[in-house]
Each structure stands twice: as C-alpha cells, then as structure tokens.
C-alpha cells in the first residue's frame, strides 16, 4: 500500500461523523402492490449533501418523494419499512404530513414559481404557517441565501414568471429555504437549466450545506461527483451501493456501481 492511500484512509477516519437526520430502515415503496423501491436502508447525515444516482426509472425520485410524504398524492401508493426523523417514523399514524413537509422542504425538477410576485413567492409559505417575524428580513435573507437577492432586489413586486429559468429555480430554492427546513430535498433541480445556471446552483448547494442537510437526485454523475459528500447508487428499485462520494466514484465495492459510474451502461 502506498503512503498516499494510507494518508487517505487516515483522513477518512478523521472525518467527523455527523448525526443522522433521516434514518431509512428497509424502505419499500409500492405502486398498487408493485415495488418501485425495494428495501432501501441508509442514513442521511446532517450538513452533508447526499446524492442519489441511477438510470431512469430506478426509483430514485420515488424514494426522494417518500422522504417528505409527497407520494401521498399518488393513488395506490403504500410504504413499507420505517423512515425515522428525530426518532419518529414519518409514516406513523400519529404523524401529520403537513408538519413533515414544513420541516422537510422540496425543490422540483422544473421550476414552479407561483404566479405571484417575487416577494409573495417567498412570503407565502411562512405566512400560511404563522410566521410572526419581519417578513421583509426573511425575504431578503432567503433570496440572499439562494444567491438571487442582487438580481431581484429592485423588482420584488414583479411577477416571478418574468424571471429566467435559472432565476426561477433559485427562487424556488429561496422559497423552500424561507421555511427554514431541516432537510432540503432536490429532485433533479438542474435538469431543465442551461450549464451556467446549473453551475450557479451547484455553487449555491456548496454554501447551503453549512446550514442545511441536502438530498439531491440527479442523473448527472459529474454533478453528483462534484457536489455531494455521500452517494447512493440505485438500480431497479434497489440501492446497490451507498458510501462516501470519493469511494463510490473511485473505488466502488460492487461491479454494477463501477460499470455505471464509468459509463459502461445506463
């Protein structure tokens, strides 16, 4: 073993292991009895970016949506196993899905701002949830966190639909951040954006992870390698491998993972 590899190993062990925010235990998601996600177990660690990669239809978006109960709106969905959030099962009968979604926010594939002003897009979530602080401050802070403030500060009352696609997506991120969520779920947030907007959002995620826990689904492997700390590789509903991103991309333990990340299939 070379000295360099040795140093790497030591470094790995030195990394402070963050506590788990979400703890998935044998989670299966079934559409009318047919499993789209099969017995997935893993932990989402605090202040880390976890990427879920895999070919189309592998169940990565389905898994993501089960983390804040957005699958509830699909007819015929059942969930098996447990997803623990602060020691409570997200699917326990006493759990209110509305409360879950206030704490676990989501950014979607296609930017979906409300047909309201920029200001009201941000203020809407906090106001329905009884936010009592200064709304102006919250709007400015959220837009700044999403690196959008400088571009829109002079036109907060304009319709959000006038923004470009990349700006709209950052607005959607700011809207989710205004709720001060404990986890931010992102479902291929850059797939509808051009490369410049994409790199802006990637830079943004890097800054956000100091405050937030992020789970991002992407079919762009370079993106996963660039931004994430942990990577999960899924195929046909099964989580094939989960580990630190460096390890998944350079020394995967499983042949399928290696084939996928080196682009030999998928």
């Amino acid at each position, binding site marked *: 073993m070379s000295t360099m590899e040795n140093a790497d190993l030591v470094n790995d062990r030195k990394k402070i292991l963050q506590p788990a925010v979400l703890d998935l235990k044998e989670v299966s998601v079934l559409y009318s009895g047919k499993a789209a996600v099969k017995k997935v177990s893993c932990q989402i660690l605090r202040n880390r970016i976890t990427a879920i990669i895999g070919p189309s239809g592998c169940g990565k978006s389905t898994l993501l949506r089960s983390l*804040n109960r*957005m699958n509830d*709106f699909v*007819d015929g969905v059942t969930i098996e196993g447990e997803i623990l959030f602060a020691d409570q099962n997200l699917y326990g009968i006493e759990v209110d899905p*509305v*409360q879950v*979604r*206030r*704490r676990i*926010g*989501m950014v*979607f594939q*296609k930017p*979906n*701002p*409300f*047909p309201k002003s920029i200001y009201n897009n941000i203020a*809407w*979530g906090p106001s*329905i*949830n009884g936010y009592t602080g200064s709304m102006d401050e919250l709007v400015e802070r959220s837009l700044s966190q999403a690196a959008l403030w400088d571009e829109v500060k002079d036109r907060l009352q304009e319709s959000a639909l006038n923004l470009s696609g990349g700006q709209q997506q950052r607005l*959607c991120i700011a*809207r*989710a951040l205004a*709720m001060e969520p404990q986890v931010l779920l992102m479902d291929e947030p850059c797939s509808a954006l051009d490369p410049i907007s994409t790199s802006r959002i990637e830079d943004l995620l890097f800054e956000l992870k100091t405050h937030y826990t992020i789970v991002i689904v992407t079919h762009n492997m370079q993106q996963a390698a660039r931004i994430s700390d942990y990577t999960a590789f899924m195929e046909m509903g099964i989580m094939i491998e989960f580990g630190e991103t460096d390890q998944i991309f350079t020394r995967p333990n499983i042949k399928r993972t290696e084939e996928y990340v080196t682009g030999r299939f998928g």
Partner: protein
Amino acid sequence: MEQLSPIEFPVGKGSNTSIHKAGMRWGEFVIKIWLQVCALISLVTTAAVVVLLLVESVKFFKVVSPLEFFFGTRWVPLLEPSSFGVLPLLWGTMLITIGAAVIALPMGLACAIYLSEYASDKIRAWVKPTLELLAGIPTIVYGYFALTFVTPLLKTFIPNIQVFNALSGAIVVGIMILPMIATLSDNALRAVPISLRQAAYALGATSYEVTTKVVVPAGLSGVMASYLLAISRAIGETMAVTIASGQTPNLSLSMLESIQTMTAYIVQISLGDTPAGSVGYQTLFAVATMLFLITLVLNIISQWILSRFREVYD
C-alpha cells in the same frame, strides 16, 4: 479498388418531371364552397337579426322618447293611457338574475372545487355527467317544476307568497345555470398546473390552503368567465321565468310577488294579437335590442377574460 456503382433512385427518373398542377381537384372545390356557404348562413342570420332589431327599434324610438323608455317606471304598452318605461321589466330580469346568481355562483364554485380538488376519479366520472344532464332538461320543464313543486314548497314556509313569484323563478334558473358554472369552473381549476399544487404542498400547506390560496386564485379568470356566461344565460332565460314568475311588470323589491322579465314580455307580445306595425308591436324590438346588447356585452367580457386566462400558462 473496385468502383462502386451509383445508387439508383426510382423517384425523379423518367421524362415526367413536371411539377405543375395536373388539373382542378373538383371534390375539394365543391366541399370548400359548401363549407363556406354554411359559414355564411350563420353570419348572414346574425347580421339579419341585428339589422331587424335596430330598424324596428329606430321606428319605436321615433314615437317614444328614449328618455321615457330608459327612465320611466311604468310599463303599460298595450292599454290607454300607455306608458313605456322599461325599468319594471329590467328590474324583473335583474331580480331573477340576482336571485339565480346568489344560489348558483357559490354552489357552482363549490361543485367545481369538489370535482377538481377532492373527488376521486371514480366519483368524478359519475358526478360530472349527471351535472351535465341537468343542462339538458328542457327549460319549460323547469318552469313547470317551479310552478308545481317549488312554489307549493315555498308556500309551506312563506304562506303569503303569490302563485306566480320571482323567487321560485330565480331558484330554478339558479339550478339551471349551476351545471354551466360547475363544468366551466372545474375546467379552469383543472387547467392550473399540478406543479403549483405540489409547490404549495411542499411548503407545508393544507389541502384547504392549496385550494383557496393557490388553485382558485390561479384559475380565477376562468371562474369569472364562467360566472359571466352563466349570468348572461340567466338574463336570456325565457320559458321557465315566463311560467314561474308571471306577467306583471313590477318594480317591487319583494321576490314573493308576480313580476315580468324582458323575455317574458317578448313571449307575451309574440303570442298575443298586437297588430304588426303598431307601437305595442315595436316595443318587442326595443326590448329585444336591449336584451341582446346586455348579453352581448357580457359574452364579450367573458371571452376577453378567457383569452387573457389562456396566456398565463403558455
């Protein structure tokens, strides 16, 4: 190296390379003319109606001053001393329309919200056709329904109600326009993208908040357009109010009395023995012109709102 022979294409070979017209396609020509004639017939009919209404109205206003017509409060066109104040008829129409709107606007929107946001596909598949069936009932049946069922029912609560009254007419007209509002508003609400609902749910909104604060505001212009179309239908409604609400021009605020709407007056004159060319006969056209203008304006406004609505999510 062996020479490759050039690939031969059958197309373009031979002497016939003309791309000129081979001749008239007669079938196509005949069909095109036929379709144009059909379109023309409806245009000509509309134009003829408008011209007729205007010409006869002008004759009427040569005899009766517009001031008396629009601001007079007595409508006695056929008896001496005659008086041609249209306000009692206009008021009769308004009573019916307001009453019907009070019933149908909130209920229609509630139906639409239920259908688009809460009903399962199975329930929707039953409820929507049933609602649309309501729209297929002949209006004269509604009239008899009002006269023989609604009014006697009202009489058990309100003993002094007249046999012909504005209230029962308004109720059945309300029922009549309900499906129109429910169906059109449902379409408008369903046109609001799912992604907006998801965005709202992901911010911790309840179904009620998503519906009232995102879906209905986003679909509001479509809902308003359905309201206006339904109101213009209520204004133009004829048979039900003629049968249920009577033939008494009345400027009273009470909905328990017999009234006469503009449409009911037109029925009365059309059926009666008023001699053609007389002033009494010409009132028909003056009233009809007014009715036509009111519904035309409402339809134009609702079309305008609808076209604006379509641009939002392009």
